[in-house]
């Protein structure tokens, strides 16, 4: 027979239970709050609406004359209208010519048309046909262009995105994928989420982050690593000079862009900035020493013996335009203190102009990607973006 529990006992039990439930709940809440703050650390950094612009700093007609520049650029128009334009040509051309570019030539795509091919699946579908896999795809991190999977894909990690950043595409710019509509922010966020400090190609990701991130605060990668631009710069400077895409020149370009962005909004520490400048000065003095009498550099611009064992596609001229054009491009944006003597630049500029003018049309088509860097470099040395150059001067 059960005895009735006295009220006082019930009250004591209720008090006991309440106290301990409260205690345990407090501990759980504390844990939950801390766990939440851990998760908050993984939050992506804020983006600025419009990417920062890095404008040319110098106007040196001794490097390239107006007429020569027009003639060179005229040869490098983006004549990709038609079926199946290679995506790496399109994004290089967009970066080269910018959104504002328009051409009288019916074969050439305008800047807006090129952007549409990259960001609007309907337009991509028109030029590549329904058989081609979409350029923009969804993964666990967001939207990204397919990379190195054929001609209908981008050539390098984040290259397309960096090109869009360099031509000033705002983060709220609408993009149309095969699955729906979103904004460019989704692509940038995907890049941030999938970024690893030790990924193989990081030069363009660096550009994207430098141009789009609102502030310089450290952020946590999905690998749980806090990164900032000092650390990224260290990563860029880690490898041997000629290692990396385009004989390592994109790494140098990325470093220069970090310096230039830092001029506009501080993203580097004093020490970090000094480190980059020291590094670039060393590179410049190396380049000054290794410049050929004609004015070009080759794959072995670091002074090592030329090793062509891994070189398959490029002719000597193509290699030299690649090495020289890229170097001239990052110098054109670099601060005065890392520039080589004027003579070095002039020799290189003259060699570039004459080489591009001598190139047969077929070689220009095959080498368009790195010619776009050479063309842009020459325009920047005249203090302008390529779309600001009057191409009608080429006939004069």
């Amino acid at each position, binding site marked *: 027979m059960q005895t009735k*529990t006295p009220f006082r*006992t*019930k009250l004591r*039990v209720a008090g*006991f*239970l309440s106290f*301990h439930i409260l*205690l*345990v709940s407090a*501990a759980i809440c*504390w*844990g939950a709050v*801390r*766990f939440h703050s*851990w998760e908050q650390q993984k939050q992506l950094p804020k983006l600025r609406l419009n990417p920062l612009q890095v404008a040319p700093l110098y106007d040196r007609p001794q490097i390239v004359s107006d007429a020569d520049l027009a003639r060179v650029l005229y040869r490098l128009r983006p004549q990709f209208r038609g079926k199946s334009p290679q995506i790496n040509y399109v994004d290089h051309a967009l970066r080269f010519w910018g959104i504002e570019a328009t051409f009288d030539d019916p074969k050439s795509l305008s800047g807006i048309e090129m952007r549409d091919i990259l960001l609007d699946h309907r337009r991509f579908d028109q030029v590549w046909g329904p058989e081609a896999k979409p350029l923009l795809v969804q993964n666990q991190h967001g939207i990204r262009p397919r990379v190195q999977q054929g001609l209908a894909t981008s050539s390098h990690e984040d290259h397309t995105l960096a090109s869009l950043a360099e031509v000033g595409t705002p983060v709220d710019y609408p993009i149309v994928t095969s699955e729906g509509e979103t904004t460019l922010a989704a692509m940038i966020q995907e890049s941030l989420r999938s970024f*690893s*400090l*030790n*990924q*193989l190609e990081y030069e363009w990701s660096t550009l994207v982050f430098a141009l789009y991130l609102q502030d310089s605060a*450290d952020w946590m*990668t999905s*690998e*749980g*690593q*806090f*990164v*900032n631009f000092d*650390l990224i710069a260290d990563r860029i400077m*880690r*490898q*041997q000079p000629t*290692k990396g895409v385009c004989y390592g020149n994109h790494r140098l370009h990325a470093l220069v862009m970090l310096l230039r962005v830092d001029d506009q909004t501080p993203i580097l520490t004093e020490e970090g900035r000094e480190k980059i400048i020291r590094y670039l000065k060393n590179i410049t003095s190396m380049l000054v020493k290794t410049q050929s009498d004609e004015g070009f550099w080759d794959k072995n611009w670091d002074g090592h013996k030329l090793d062509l064992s891994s070189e398959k596609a490029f002719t000597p001229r193509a290699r030299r335009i690649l090495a020289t054009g890229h170097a001239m491009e990052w110098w054109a944006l670099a601060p005065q203190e890392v520039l080589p003597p004027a003579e070095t630049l002039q020799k290189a500029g003259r060699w570039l102009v004459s080489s591009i003018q001598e190139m047969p049309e077929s070689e220009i088509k095959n080498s368009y990607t790195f010619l776009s860097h050479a063309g842009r470099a020459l325009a920047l040395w005249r203090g302008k973006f390529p779309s600001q150059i009057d191409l009608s001067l080429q006939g004069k």
Partner: protein
Amino acid sequence: MSVDSHPGTIESLTPVDKKRSHREMLSMGWPQLITCLWFAVLFFYFGNVHIFYSDIWGHVSYGDWIIANQSLPQFDPFLSLAAGVPCIDAAWLSQIIFAKVNSVLGVRGLSHIFALTVFTTHVLFWFAFYLKSGRVGVSTLASFLLVVISSSRIAIIRPEIFGSLCVAVLLVIMAWSEKYDVFKSDLSRTDDLEKPQKQGAKTSVGLLFSLYLGIPLIFLAWANLHGSFVVGLAILGLQFLGRVIEVGWRTRSLIQICTDKWVRRWLIVTELSVCGALLNPYHIDLFINSLTFPRNPNLKDVLEWEPLEFRDAEGIWFCFSWVIMLVLYRHSRERVRTADVLRVGLLSLAVIVGVRMIGWFSVVFVYAMVPHLANVLPNWSQQHPGLDMAPPQKIPFWAKKSPVITAFCVLILWFGFAFSNIATPLFGGTPRKLDKIYSEGTPRQLTEFLKAHPPEGQVWNPQWWGDWLVSDGPPQMNVFMTTNAVHLAPPRVWKDYLGIARASRGWQSVAEKYNVSTLIVHKEKQVKLDEEVRRLKGFQVVYEDDLSVVVSREPALISAAKQTKEAGAKQAVKAIEADQLEPGQLEPGQIESDQEVQP
């Protein structure tokens, strides 16, 4: 609701025992002799365990760093590739202990502290088993079982040994408390009804102190010594939960559960223990870290964090444990405690998920099985509780007790201690040679070479040598991976490390990505990589011994290697000319086997 007495407690309190003469009191039996022998063997074994070349040296380095900087590291101080990855140093106190011992007593001190800690741990485990079973022989058998099941994890010196010591002390207190905390189910046995009330009232002050003060203090130390304190909290929490279930199952009353003395006690002890564990530099973050730690993606590639393979030694012992458990549960008439079932269940799952947990499983498993072992195994001494109660001729051999056996016990214990390495400083004699302390795979000659010719750039090294290289190599050497920082390395770095370690296709480009200028290869364990690094363009072999090969493209190392080679050749020629070269003579760069190498 009642609490009954434990069979073990009755045995030692029989009136017969009180009447024993001094001679009888000094008499020991075979179980005691075997126990002494067992502990002498254990002491000898632990004292002779080699210091493994792996993570202990990382812990020593961490300890040195903490002492030097008077703060805890926010990021791994030795792995530049893990820069920016937040570090929660769950073993900071152990690391300081290791560093201090190493700086004062050297590597022999590390060996001694390992031997003493692990031996004490096993003595305490044995004592906990004895408190539960009341039988020396059964406790020793249980101790043996524990060593066998956890054999794969027993001989490694790392902060976990302090965690084991903490769990041993915890189990002693829990075993002590279980004499009182036993829920009686069979209410029909009216003869037992009186006992629990009496026993509940008689809970000793010492036990209460141990519960309310001792256990929280254990957790205070444990949380600062090693991240395994969460296992301890689980053990304790399940003791509370087990009691709740037992009382709830029988009474079906929330009021009864809440008013049960031991439910309240275990709840309060658990809460106090959580509070004790929170007194650490990271507070609740340490809990979150310990709970989320096994989710680290890098650990999937680490053998001890892999799921249980039933064909491996751990898998075999795990299955063996379960078979024993089923047999014991089938034949034992001892009550199965709910808390034990919960603990064995939880730790079994943990072992299946990560084989590393086998050590903790073995502890709770044996602790749960001890009463059943005692129940199933025949008890000669209970059948013949006193020498005076049965005719001498009827005493079975195994139940005999004699002062001679006692003398043997003392002798065994004395020899066990006197011949141990720990006794050398007390009694004199030749200290244990360093070659016998360092494990065979410790690359001591390699670090001598590296100290003489420090690499400046990024060094690629086997992860298992990373800690030693940091500890004994040149200062500021840029190692690629250490065992201590596997969980801190960004996953891509870890994958790249594995790619190089396995000489996977394209590993050279991966090494190039990190601008690796020197590669250290374990010749025996990395045969393929050994072959390939020798063919690596731009690199030259700059050092080689039986254990390792070093290739580098750093001019300073290459020229140093050339000089050493030339000097070696000249020396050899001179020796041949003078007819002085003898077999076994030291090569240039080799060190004397007994030369103290201060990490």
